[in-house]
């Protein structure tokens, strides 16, 4: 009894990729876009409040700003910069595909370009911000 189609049955697909949604790299960029987006907005809620303290004058604001001189917070800050950058680059990819539908053919290349651009820009950023974190840990200003 010959099957009429050449594609593998559903069970095979699940076996090869595990319980993943369609097993395509696009699902990871989709998931990362959501995770980075949620992380950014949750930080933003707090960040608007801490910046608003500036309205209460130098003593209050400088006390709040000193939180950012903690090395652990600075590590989170590096993560925030990474999240904003990834979300932005991947957002550009989404817009390219949505507004120029023929680019859907090159979705894989666009995904790779997004990751390459992200990693390439994070290298100097990590060096710059990392150097200042190390300085803080050594007890410098």
């Amino acid at each position, binding site marked *: 009894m010959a099957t009429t189609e050449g594609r593998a049955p559903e069970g095979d697909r699940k076996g090869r990729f595990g319980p993943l949604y369609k097993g395509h790299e696009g699902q990871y960029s989709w998931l990362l876009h959501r995770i980075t987006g949620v992380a950014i*907005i949750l930080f933003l809620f707090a960040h*608007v409040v801490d910046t608003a303290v500036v309205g209460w004058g130098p003593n209050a604001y400088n006390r709040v*700003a000193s939180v950012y001189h903690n090395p652990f917070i600075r590590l989170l800050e590096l993560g925030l910069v990474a999240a904003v950058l990834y979300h932005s680059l991947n957002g550009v990819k989404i817009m390219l595909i949505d507004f120029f539908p023929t680019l859907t053919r090159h979705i894989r290349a666009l995904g790779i370009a997004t990751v390459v651009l992200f990693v390439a820009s994070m290298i100097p950023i990590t060096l710059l911000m990392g150097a200042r974190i190390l300085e803080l840990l050594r007890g410098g200003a």
Partner: protein
Amino acid sequence: MSATTEVRPAAPPPAGKPVGAGRDRPSGRWELWTWLFMRVSGLVLLVLAVGHVLIMHVLDDGVDRVNFAFIQLRWGSLLWKSWDWAMLVLALLHGVNGLRVIVLDYVRPSGARIAINGFFTVLGAALIVLGTIIVVTFDPSAWPGAA
């Protein structure tokens, strides 16, 4: 109904829809407007938020130099006041709508949906009001010698 913000490319193109025809846009007035808003605000935030992050957190000693005197100098300029205010409004609207889309995907009971999205909407609106008041009323000359 589904207002996904990311592509789901692995599905074979539906019959009668050639590859390259793109994915469907949301149907319905409200979802189409929020879909468009996410893209337009995203494009503007690409400049405002990425610029902000690079200037305030990465370049030139980053957050090390941020204190009251720094803000005094920065918000003495109408350009930076406008930049920060536009970013405040667009980022909060973009983020709260993003949360709404995610809540609609993962939360089923309509009461919980309304409660969670209502909470984020009220929080976002309150922060837009708070931030606007602070940016507009901040007077750099009100605290002389604050450095």
